[in-house]
């Protein structure tokens, strides 16, 4: 579903945020991307989402190159940044309708999808209010609903559990499973290692822009915990 080949990103000033990263996310897979602050996770996710320009490497989503066939790649992707700022001057329903229009979701199915996800996240009653009146968690839920109604083939999320209450986090995991069962894939970054360990089929660990470990969660963790593995890798001079 997602192929990243030899992706590198150097920011103006010379900082190399990501260095020769290659990874593949298969359909039906939940893939966790972990690393310390500034390791290059967000840079990678933004490049995959088509939000950030890059010149080295190739990224394809469902066979569409994100640089040369950007619109087709974006059509099958839903991206949520770590702190999704939404349009405060729109109401929740206006925002969802706007997103549905951009992704060309037909009227009937958008209504069903909004009813399903809005009801599940207990946000339907608030959809008539301006987004500016929402709490951080409500905005996070609205952003997640806007991503889920697209029924994306690739769900890209940067720190998705920040700001979510436990029941919403639980729901989100259920919806991921639903999406993956339908052949979609989830690629997300997180600092919550327990969640990554429980949820992910595969995990990649990045340090200072370089991939230092990748594999099936069970194989990567072994008899230890992901936290122990992560801390060990962070400390042993990898990268």
């Amino acid at each position, binding site marked *: 579903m997602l192929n990243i080949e030899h992706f590198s990103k150097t920011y103006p000033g010379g900082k190399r945020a990501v260095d020769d990263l290659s990874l593949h996310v298969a359909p039906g897979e939940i893939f966790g991307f972990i690393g310390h602050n500034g390791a290059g996770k967000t840079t990678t996710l933004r490049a995959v989402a088509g*939000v950030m320009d890059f010149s080295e490497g190739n990224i394809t989503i469902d066979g569409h190159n994100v640089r040369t066939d950007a619109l087709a790649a974006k059509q099958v992707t839903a991206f949520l940044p770590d702190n999704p700022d939404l349009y405060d001057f729109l109401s929740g329903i*206006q925002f969802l309708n*706007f997103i549905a229009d951009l992704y060309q979701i037909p009227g009937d199915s958008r*209504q069903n999808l*909004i009813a399903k996800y809005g009801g599940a996240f207990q946000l339907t009653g608030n959809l008539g209010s301006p987004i500016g009146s929402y709490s951080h968690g409500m905005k996070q839920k609205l952003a997640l609903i806007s991503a889920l109604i697209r029924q994306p083939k690739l769900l890209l999320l940067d720190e998705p559990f920040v700001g979510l209450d436990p029941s919403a986090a639980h729901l989100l995991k259920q919806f991921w499973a639903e999406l993956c069962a339908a052949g979609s894939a989830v690629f997300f970054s997180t600092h919550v290692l327990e969640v990554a360990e429980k949820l992910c089929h595969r995990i990649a660990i990045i340090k200072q822009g370089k991939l230092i470990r990748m594999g099936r969660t069970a194989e990567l963790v072994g008899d230890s915990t992901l936290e122990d593995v992560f801390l060990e890798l962070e400390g042993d001079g990898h990268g």
Partner: protein
Amino acid sequence: MVKFLALLKLNFRAALAALRMGGRKRSVSGVGALVLLAGLSLYISGLYSFLFASQLAPAGALPLLIVFMSLGAVLLGFLFSLFAAQGMVFGTKDNDLMLALPVTPFALMLSRTLALYLENLISTLFVLLPAGVIYLWYGGPGGIWVLPTLLVCALFLNFLPTLLSLVAGFVLAFLSSRATHKALMGNLFNLIFLALLLVGSFSLSSNMGELGDAASGIHDAFQGWGLPFLLTEGAVCRGSVPDLLLLCALCLLPFLAVVWLFARRYKSIVTGLTARSARSDYKLGRLSAAGQRRALLVKEARRWFGTPMYLFNTCLGLIMLPGAGVAALIYRSSIQDFLSQIGWEFFFPLLIVGVCFCLSTVAITGSSISLEGKNLWLLKSAPISPATLFGAKVGFQLLACLPSLVVGTILLTIAFELPLWAGVLMLLDGLLFALVCAPFGLWINLHFPKLDAVNDTAVVKQSVSAFLSTLLPMVLVLVFFLLWLPLMEPLGALGLTLLYTGVLAAAVFLSFWVLIRQGPALFRQLSD
């Protein structure tokens, strides 16, 4: 005191950073925009000072020039900073951080208000100092002390527009915090203010011819409410030190008192502004689908109408254009008397210049990329091409201009009794000018985006893009104006207006060409 100075430094930096965005090219552009603002103030001051001085000097009432221009400086500063006060003092995005710091609300509010003062100072100085030079040119009394004294007076008089805009910003914030529809309340308030401003300007222009005769009466009329302006006159023209000291006290003390009073309720006002009315009884109904272009267009409209700062900084021309038509209809018989002696053809190109001038103030696209700010990820990750996005932004500006342009040109055509072809040509030129401004403003904004602004004021009023996207089309209007007299006789009204049409058509082509050619790459480089 140390804390206050740190806050003051921070707020001054924030005010200056709105113009300077890093990088040599952009810093130079920021300075260029400042020069343009100063130039605009200089132009307004120079024009009115000469007009006033030529009326007042023969009547021996030249010191009244200082009274008028100090009043003008205060009013112009008030106009420039009215919307800024709302954003810079009450609506900044760092309120949570600032209010949590161990500083008094008075120190915080004073530091923010002084940043507003700094911004006002540019226009105040560039209105008052040229007036002083023209005053001396016409032989006004006072000698070498006129300009230094005027400079000191300007520093203190500048507290008045800051104070007025602070009060207006407070009233607006106070009303908004109690209103269900904040944007509507803001729009209504600003509409009333603009209406009063237009009526005031119209009345001032009508009465300018009788200034010399009414000099003594005007002097009396300033007694009381206009005391600061009379004190300025006393200090500058007669070198009166008591007048200067009284002026300083009269400007500074009320300013500090009002800041102190407002600071007592600062937290509740700021909290009220951030709180929004919310309901939890929404029932999901039938949803209709629309295309990408319509969705983007509707979003642009909702942002424009839902952001009073944005709306009222870009709609002045849209009100002025039909307003001028209505005024022309009211004075239709006087206009016809005047035109019967000279002929309508002589003034026809000027009408087109006027229409273009009104439209040059409608720089909606000049801020539209910057206002995306932290929401930019939404558009960049969506399956929409830059061409679709640009089309919606340019299209919205054109849609906003069209009703005003059509109504304005029809009313002017009737009032001036223009033949049909002239009316159509005026409409065509207006349309072409709008077609120049919209893509040009967007291109400028893509070059000079301000995506990390602390409030909408910094984008709409203080950014390089907002300045350039308004002022550069004005330069084209100025060129048209300067061509009027030299080319009117050789080309005639039709020839000259067709020349305008040709230039505008070429400018339309150029604007769209650079936007299409450079826009997508510039958009890709943007990073929120």
